[in-house]
């Protein structure tokens, strides 16, 4: 296990969370909490992946941690939990998978027929990973609500 790697991961993913928090114009008092959510969530994912878990379940665990933390900060700072959920999860959004999937689509369109098959496979894998990771993020950050707040629907 590479602990230095995890520490670096903590730092950079926290910076990602704060950067996007500024882009989404969150209240200033929530920035530190956004840093903590983003850092711990992504670092947990990296840790699990180093232990051999694949990316989708690792993301589910990381996002669930973000969900629990955002539930805590929501009560502590009296701010809706979606602020911390979105900013904390943004570093886990499968941007590079989506990028490779989109690039793959274009390569399928422009490749010679004989070479299409491996590109097709690769693109499909990237699309599947994108979808799975997104589902894991959404399920993870809503998990505390689904578990602890099973209130009657109001509408």
């Amino acid at each position, binding site marked *: 296990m590479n602990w230095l790697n995890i520490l*670096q*991961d903590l730092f*950079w*993913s926290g*910076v*990602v969370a*704060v*950067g*996007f*928090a*500024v*882009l*989404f*114009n*969150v*209240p*200033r008092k929530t920035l530190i909490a956004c840093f903590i959510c983003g850092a711990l969530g*992504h670092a947990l994912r990296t840790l699990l992946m180093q232990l051999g878990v694949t990316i989708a379940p690792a993301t589910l665990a990381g996002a669930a941690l973000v969900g629990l933390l955002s539930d805590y900060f929501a009560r502590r700072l*009296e*701010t*809706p939990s*979606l*602020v911390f*959920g*979105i*900013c904390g*999860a*943004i*570093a886990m*959004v499968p*941007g*590079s998978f*989506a*990028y*490779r999937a*989109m*690039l793959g*689509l*274009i390569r399928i369109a422009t490749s010679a027929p004989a070479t299409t098959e491996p590109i097709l496979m690769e693109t499909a894998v990237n699309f599947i990973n994108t979808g799975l990771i*997104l*589902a894991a*993020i*959404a*399920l993870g*950050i*809503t998990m505390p609500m*689904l578990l602890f707040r099973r209130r009657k629907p*109001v*509408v």
Partner: protein
Amino acid sequence: MDQEAVIEKPPLDHETLRDVIDLSLWAGQMLLQHGADTDRVESVVHLIGTSLGAAWLDILVSPNALIVTTISGDEFRTKVRRVVTLGVNLSIVCAINDLAYRISWGEVDRVEARAELLRISAVRSNYNRWVVVGMVGLACASLSRLFGADLGVFAVTFLSSAAAMFVRQEMSRRHINAFMIVVVTAFVAGAGASTATLFQLSPNPQIALAASVLLLVPGVHLINSLRDMINGHMVTGLVRGFTGAVISMCIALGLLLAMQLLGVSGL
């Protein structure tokens, strides 16, 4: 729904009921515009309406409209409001959420609520635009670090995504079509990031290409999409997901245009 409780509330007069539906719709519209998920829109609109004296509210959140029916005594009223989705602004979501709770505790009445909504809708950004440019550049550069970039790629990613963010701000100030903005911004980011390959600044310069467009990734759309679906709001969930997919396509288009013009390969 508890019908007994509904009948017990004193009926509102014509003018008041009109005001109640107007205020709750306005709040719901702002939430939907600035990145709240469907469940939150529904519960906040419901809370505001019932706290201001309506007996019950029925709410239909559609991807680009909000329909609310208020019930009070024997009267009911229905109103539709078109909603055009704007950028994500979580401060507004927070402020509306806060206002809804203050209304429900009786701290804010109808007149004050209107003034408060007007104040929230006019509020400017919390951060200086140059701070936003710098932080977005830093966020994308940090993502490149997470993908394993070295210092050269880090610097290139920072500069190109900050430049792209600047272009994006300038274009959205001029109210250019949202998808057009994405294509042009991705082009700028891609052209900037291509320099890492062109000048051979790093052994794996393609990381800069992948990371510098991430400021455009429709993270909020995609997360909200799945979240809506988990909560059973399939229509809004599907539309948000599809919007996210179209935005991703626009990113790919702009990026590829830059890469092919400069003769850079992405993989």
